[in-house]
């Protein structure tokens, strides 16, 4: 197992290098740069000499190979550079947003699990009954409805309903407060995007739980357990569910990794200062340094998540052994 893990970690190096190469050159293939956006994009007088000076200071006039070396060599010195827009260290910019994105990802995952596992089990156990149909309709709706749209509806709904009931419209806070500082305010801001995202996320997991459980329930060992006279609850919880969860764990883990950097639109809808919003802003501002590091962070998260999923597989199904 250890050998396998080491091998996977070593294999991650060319993956990361390939991603670095790709993101570096793709970004520079897009016309425009941060200095033009910063100095000319406002419509105010823009002195071409100032724009050149800005480029010089940010190293944008350096040869490509020098810029690429600056980017890659940072990993060996743990100096990821500064944001081209704010001039602040990238580790600071990302660190600031990472905790919010992580919290949202955890909350959305909890919402998804809380919905998906019970509904998936009910749907499988009560196959082809009205309950199964209701759960399937609920989950299909979750897949069909984009979470950003649900987010918009939630905000508008809150504004309209609270105005109707209490006379004054209410919406969730739009500036972030840490859960350690003010847990109530933090929850009143983040519960809504967690529900909006968790619902879509749960829809996929519900369907996966249902189909995996249905497959397992038809296995010989389940029939054997039933013939032994075991209670249905014990058969499902102890024997069937654990095996059925393998693909569900994969889905949940991949979605979790996606949520950390991928809540681009939902973060905008709820004005959350997370990595998704930072991603959009850095791309919009042509902040090459920051965009590169954000892409690399997402790649790294996916590499780690895949590794963790593989290890979880072995734990959930002892027959799986990696060599």
């Amino acid at each position, binding site marked *: 197992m250890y050998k396998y893990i080491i091998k996977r970690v070593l294999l991650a190096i060319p993956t990361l290098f390939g991603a670095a190469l790709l993101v570096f050159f793709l970004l520079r293939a897009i016309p425009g740069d941060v200095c*033009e956006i910063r100095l000319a994009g406002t419509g105010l007088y823009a002195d071409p000499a100032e724009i050149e000076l800005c480029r010089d200071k940010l190293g944008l006039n350096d040869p490509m190979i020098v810029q690429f070396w600056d980017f890659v060599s940072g990993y060996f010195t743990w100096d990821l550079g500064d944001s081209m827009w704010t001039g602040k260290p990238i580790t600071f910019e990302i660190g600031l947003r990472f905790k919010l994105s992580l919290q949202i990802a955890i909350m959305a995952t909890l919402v998804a699990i809380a919905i998906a596992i019970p509904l998936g089990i009910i749907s499988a156990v009560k196959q082809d009954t009205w309950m199964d149909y209701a759960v399937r309709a609920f989950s299909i709706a979750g897949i069909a409805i984009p979470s950003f749209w649900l987010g918009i509806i939630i905000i508008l709904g809150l504004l309209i309903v609270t105005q109707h009931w209490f006379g004054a419209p209410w919406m969730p806070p739009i500036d972030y407060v840490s859960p350690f500082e003010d847990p109530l305010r933090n929850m009143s801001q983040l519960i809504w995007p967690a529900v909006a995202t968790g619902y879509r996320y749960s829809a996929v997991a519900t369907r996966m739980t249902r189909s995996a459980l249905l497959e397992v329930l038809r296995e010989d060992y389940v029939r054997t357990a039933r013939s032994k006279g075991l209670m249905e609850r014990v058969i499902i919880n102890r024997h069937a569910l654990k095996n059925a969860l393998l693909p569900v764990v994969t889905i949940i883990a991949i979605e979790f990794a996606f949520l950390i950097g991928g809540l681009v639109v939902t973060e905008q809808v709820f004005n959350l200062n997370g990595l998704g919003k930072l991603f959009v802003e850095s791309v919009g501002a042509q902040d090459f340094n920051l965009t590169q590091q954000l892409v690399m962070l997402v790649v790294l998260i996916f590499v780690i998540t895949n590794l963790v999923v593989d290890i979880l597989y072995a734990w959930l199904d002892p027959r799986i052994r990696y060599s």
Partner: protein
Amino acid sequence: MKRFSPKLAAVAVLSCAFGLGVGGPAAAQERGGVLNFVVGSKIPSYDGHRETTFGMIHPIAPFYSLLIRVNPDNPQSATDFVCDLCEGSVPKPTEGGTKYTFKIRSGVKFHDGAPLSSADIKATYDKIIFPPEGVPSARKAFFKMVESVEAPDSTTVVFKLKFPSGAFIPALATPFNFVYSKKDLDAHGYEWHGKNINGSGPFVFVQHQPGSFVEGKRNGNYHHSGQPYLDGFKAISAPKMAIRLNAIRGDRAAIEFRGFPPKARDDLVNALGDKITVQESDWNCVLLSTPNQMREPFDDPRVRQALTLSVDRWAGSKYLSEIAIVKTVGGVVFPNHPLAANKDELTQLAGYWTDLNKSRARATQLLKQAGHSDLKFELNNRGVDQPYKVVGTWLIDQWRQAGLNVTQRVQPTPPFYATLRKKKDFDVSVDFNCQSVINPIADISKFLGSAGNNYGNYQDQVLEDIYNELLQTGDEAGQRTLIRKYEKRALDEMAHLGVTLWWYKINPHRSYVKGWKIAPSHYLNQQLDNVWLDKSLM
């Protein structure tokens, strides 16, 4: 559901126009409270001398003072400048208009406790006007007329000009000219203010969570007696307009200082009635249509004239102002400024005639003469709804009505500017001129082929000569005559650029926000020292 009441909106707007319920008499001003406002752009750095975005001005300007500023109680005036750090009135020039002597207030302190003197003003303006090599200063070109800045004693600053210029005082009042401490500049260098704040403004910096908010608290030692009225402010970053709008509706924020389109104003008034006050103003920003004179047939003035003659600006004003943040028909100078063209003067220019049929017939004739009766081209536009895409679509419709075949290429901001500035691979492009203090002589430099922000790719020595003469002209009547000549050359005879419609600023805000008065620019009047909250309306 309640429908939008035009009567209600009219009341709200008029209340602003007559100063009712917005500023109020001094006795009514209340102390206390924190003003939450939303900002739709982000902060690059804190250094006003380097930056150009309102994303920096709105949250950071309250921490700083200026030497002079636009009168916060009369920001609609383009010529009413008052002292901020200087004493008394803004001085009149001496020595034939080439010397301005400012007396500096005594007793002013920076937030770190250091006293402010004329040496700080000199150090600040030296950095802005004569920055050492490698130090960015976005507006040093505004001060081409300045020969030197001197501080003969601790309370006097003298600006000596190379020639008299009507552009000097407005340039001095530019809201980006934050006064820095000489001590900070000497001790920490010219980059320090990009990441640190030490001003003498009405509010003291508390914290900045990048991407989230900036927080300030009341400066107890502020030099304008009794001000500021607020205990503090919180500038919340909200890039999406829907969020900013909902934030005001849900009272997460009381105001947004940049501006909303008419529909957003109507939605807010419709939902909240008299809890919303609307302030509206002409806006010192304008979209232009810029033909690329490096490309045929746009190197032919007849073709460019045909483009401007095809556009019905008067009708456009009427209809576009209902859906977009544009309204007023104007020439090269901000409308209603003493140096701007009046309606009679405008209607003499190509593209402003009141007889549209005559105008389009002339356009057709000119295209025929130029051998381009079936002209086809592409309009390059920026992927921003308000007002770029709206105005771009309107322009295309206008040109099509005149028989031209026009398509539109909408690009995100980075490639849009790369097209204008580097690649130059466009036929005609939407372009943008947006300034802060109304400074016509500086603002109209946009129309010069030599200007760094002109994308028409032309040289016109006649226009340059008129402008140079204008720069050296001190009296207003002379300036006005020269600007008309300049306007005629730029918009009519050579039709280098086409002015579309001037922007229109709409600021719906919570009615409990008092004291803030709308200015003709989203960069102006943002120190918030005269803003207060009427708690009876909260």
